[in-house]
Every structure is written in structure tokens, then in C-alpha cells.
């Protein structure tokens, strides 16, 4: 037994538990590391600490109730998760929502994405030992939360989307608030680059660390900015446009390096694209009803349906098998974090423990999203 543990360099491999209460896992993720000195030989994720059996619960809930379960998955992309279920029901019942709903949803999506990327940017700095970024990011994110609170009544779990439209209309001050915010944030975003992107310590710790090739990104199903940093063109907003994404111009941020720094850069660049999308839409919110006529009891036709949306972390999918009743027969949430986590072992082998923190940060994992 002892002989098996001794590697060919003559050192003995040993195990270290990282988490579930480790600050850099941002939640209750436990990683069992097999180490050779300080070099990682294997990473074994142990998940399920916040498993709430949401898929089982959804089997007993109506479609309108399921919407409220989804923002407990990836709480930083709550709005997009809600939209996935709303779109699934609308597409299955062939309900056409008004242009107003589509445009508002898109604006709210991008605001959520901005907020999520800001939080991630603050936290990655903190993981690398730079507290300042955290303060900068939360200063900016707070204002987005204020807009959310005034519009939807909630700061984190919005529940603004519902099958058929929106819960309620925008308030009269919304456009001015968002425009003021964008004006403010456009002066702040270059600061992000000055503070972190050009920082020698930061670039040294991320460049060339945790390289993920394009073929592996596809095979492991790594989506979102992490996948696009490896050149995987997986932006659902581009490949299968939903809501108002077909009427705005934006670039899909694609990179070739596939290392931690590319994953970092793709998110920072994506913030500029989000700003651009909101700017194109904010002055052109068409008039119209915020709710399409819907029956009080939503029943999906017999069959199976799949809806994918692009959240801040990647491709979020809802798979529903319906037997024609008001509750689904089976619901599966394809969470982006789950697939992104699966690649962690593959890309961190051979690196040091400190690099694992950088890799995990740039994969941008949200644990409730993984555990469901």
C-alpha cells in the first residue's frame, strides 16, 4: 500500500481537503487534492452540500411556481434563469410575447450579467490577495442592485419574468437610472483594467495557468466566457437568438489562449459588450402589453421541451418532459457550473495549489448552481 503512494521521484503523495469552508471556493465546495509536494496530481470535487433537490421539487410544482425555484440555482444570473423557464413555456404553447417584454428582458439580462461579472471581478482580485478590487466592484454593483430593487422589488432573486411576460411594468424613472448608471460605469470600467489587467503579479499568476484546449472545452461542455476563452463559439445569444438579441449588434468575445488570463479577459471584454447592448435598447423600448393572454392554469402539451439561454456563467438549459398535466413529469436543469466544474481536475493537474485558486476563480463557479 505504501509503495503505491510513492511516486517515481521518490516523494510520498498525500491528500489535502480544500473546503467545504475554504474562502476561495465561494460556497460549500469540497475538493480532495492529491498532492506531490505542492504539485497537484488529482482534484476530486465533492459536491452536494447545498443540494436542495430542486428537480424533484419541480415535479410537484406548476410551471409558474418552477420559475421561482430557478433563481435559487445561480443566484447571480437569477433573471436569466427565470427567463429560461418562461421562454420554454411560451415556446411550447406558442405564445408570442410583445416586443416590449422582449426588450425589457434583454436589458435586464445584460444588467444582471454586468452585476455578475462585477462581483466575479472583485472576488478574483480578492482570491489573489488584492482586497481593493472587491471594494471597487461592490461599489459599482451596489448601484445595479438598486436599479433591480426599484424595478423588481428584489435585489438578488428577482422573479421578474413569468410565463407570458413580466410581473409588472417598468417604473417611470428606469431609463434615466440605467443611462446614468452606464455613464458612470463607463468611466469606472477602464479602472478595472488599470487595477488588475495590467498588474504584474496578477498576470504572472494567471498567464499560461490552467490551459484548456478547444477540443477539451467542447468535450467537457465548458461554456460561457470560460469556453469562449478557448475559442469555443458557444454564445446562445448568437447561435440561437432569443428575446431581443437578434436586433442588437454585439461581438461574441472569442479568444485562443484558453488560459486563466484569457478567461479573465473575456469576461472584462464582455462587460463592454453588455454596456453596448443596453445602450442600443434603452432608448427604444417599444410600447405594448407586458403580459400576453395566458390561461390561469398552464398545461404543456405532451412531449419534451428544451430551452437554452446564455447566463453569466454559460449555457443554462431547462429540459422538461410533460405528460400533459399542470405539473411536469420530469425537469432537468442543465447548469453551466456543473459542466465547468468537471474540467477542473483536467486543467489543474501539474500546477501548484496557489494556481488552483486562480483556475477556480476564472472558471467562476457558483455552488448552488452546481448542486441544484
Amino acid at each position, binding site marked *: 500500500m505504501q509503495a503505491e503512494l510513492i511516486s517515481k521521484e521518490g516523494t510520498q503523495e498525500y491528500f489535502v481537503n480544500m473546503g467545504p469552508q475554504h474562502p476561495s471556493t465561494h460556497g460549500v465546495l469540497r475538493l480532495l487534492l492529491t498532492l506531490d509536494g505542492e504539485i497537484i496530481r488529482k482534484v476530486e470535487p465533492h*459536491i*452536494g452540500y447545498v*443540494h436542495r*433537490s430542486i*428537480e*424533484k421539487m419541480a415535479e*410537484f410544482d406548476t410551471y409558474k411556481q418552477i420559475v421561482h425555484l430557478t433563481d435559487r440555482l445561480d443566484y447571480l444570473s437569477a433573471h436569466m434563469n427565470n427567463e429560461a423557464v418562461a421562454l420554454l413555456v411560451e415556446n*411550447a404553447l406558442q405564445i408570442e410575447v410583445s416586443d416590449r417584454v422582449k426588450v425589457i428582458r434583454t436589458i435586464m439580462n445584460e444588467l444582471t450579467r454586468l452585476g455578475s461579472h462585477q462581483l466575479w471581478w472583485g472576488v478574483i482580485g480578492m482570491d489573489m490577495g488584492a482586497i481593493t478590487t472587491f471594494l471597487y466592484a461592490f461599489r459599482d454593483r451596489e448601484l445595479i442592485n438598486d436599479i433591480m430593487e426599484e424595478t423588481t422589488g428584489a435585489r438578488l432573486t428577482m422573479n421578474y419574468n413569468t410565463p407570458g411576460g413580466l410581473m409588472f411594468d417598468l417604473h417611470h424613472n428606469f431609463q434615466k437610472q440605467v443611462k446614468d448608471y452606464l455613464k458612470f460605469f463607463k468611466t469606472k470600467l477602464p479602472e478595472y483594467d488599470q487595477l488588475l489587467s495590467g498588474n504584474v503579479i496578477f498576470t504572472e499568476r494567471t498567464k499560461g495557468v490552467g490551459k484548456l484546449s478547444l*477540443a*477539451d472545452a*467542447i*468535450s*467537457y*461542455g465548458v*461554456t460561457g466566457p470560460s469556453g469562449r476563452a478557448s475559442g*469555443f*463559439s*458557444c454564445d446562445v445569444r448568437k447561435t440561437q437568438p432569443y428575446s431581443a438579441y437578434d436586433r442588437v449588434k454585439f461581438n461574441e468575445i472569442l479568444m485562443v489562449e484558453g488560459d486563466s488570463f484569457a478567461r479573465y479577459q473575456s469576461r472584462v471584454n464582455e462587460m463592454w459588450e453588455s454596456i453596448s447592448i443596453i445602450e442600443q435598447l434603452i432608448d427604444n423600448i417599444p410600447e405594448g402589453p407586458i403580459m400576453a393572454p395566458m390561461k390561469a392554469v398552464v398545461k404543456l402539451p405532451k*412531449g*419534451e*421541451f*428544451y430551452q*437554452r439561454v446564455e447566463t453569466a456563467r454559460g*449555457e443554462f*438549459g431547462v*429540459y422538461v*418532459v410533460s405528460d400533459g398535466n399542470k405539473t411536469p*413529469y*420530469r425537469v*432537468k436543469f*442543465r447548469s453551466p457550473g*456543473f*459542466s465547468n*466544474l*468537471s*474540467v477542473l481536475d*483536467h486543467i489543474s493537474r501539474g500546477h501548484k495549489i496557489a494556481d488552483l485558486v486562480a483556475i477556480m476563480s476564472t472558471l467562476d463557479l457558483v455552488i448552488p448552481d452546481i*448542486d*441544484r
Partner: protein
Amino acid sequence: MENEKLRQLISSWEPSVELIDGPQYLEVVVPSAQFRALAEKLRFDNQTQFDYMFNMTCVDWNDHFQTIYHLESTKLNHALVLKAKIADHNQPEVDTICDIWRTAELHEREVFDLFGVKFNQHPDLRRLLLTDEWVGHPLRKDYVDEVNMVLR
């Protein structure tokens, strides 16, 4: 490739498949014994090249299980749903495909955990979300938990 061509191609490879035109995707139901061979063809054949598995799950149909694989080709831009029909409800077994699509490794562990479907040749088949001591497989339709489940 269009769905019609895919249909012809797949039924020429594997005559035992059942092809259904779903509301979104072409659905291919294959018996679990022939599943692995068809999955390999779909992944590596030049005409199909399904390299991206964007979802994997399982459904309990009370008398049999279906493991469900959503496949897409990033090169040829077509998609389909592959389903393996596992007739034995008492001891469900199907071959693993986690060496073809690496993302399946964790997904298959999840299905094993919540449905109790055994994946042959899986390198590390253990419970994933639940504790090792857990009894039963909660997403099965016949699962009973009188304490934690509220039936309506």
C-alpha cells in the same frame, strides 16, 4: 445535416432504432444493448460529428428507464436527442460514454446517484450529490420519503 438525412443515415446504421420527430429535435431511441455502438458512430463519423453533449439526464417511465443525451455538432450545426432505452427496471444498466464526451463522467455519476442506473465501465461510479449512506434513489417515481416529501 437536415433531420430527414439524419433519419436515413441513422436507420441505415442501426435498424432497431425508433425515430421520433419531436417539437424541437429529432429523437433517436435505441435499445441499451446497441446504444454504445451508435453513440460512437454519431460522435466520430464524418457525416455527423456530434462533438458537444450539452445535456444528459434520465427519465423514469415506471416500467423502464431512458437515459437522455442532447447532442450537437459544433462543426456541422445539427442537433438531436439520443435516448437509450433500458428495459430492466430492477437492475438498470447501460454502457458509459464518458470517454467519448468527457462531460458525461460527472453527469453519469449524478444519474447513478439519483436514479440508480449503473453505467458499465465507468471509471469512478459513486454517489455524487447525496451522502454515501443514502438509501434509495430520490428521482425514481416510486421513491418514498415520508418525512421530507409533501405529496399534493
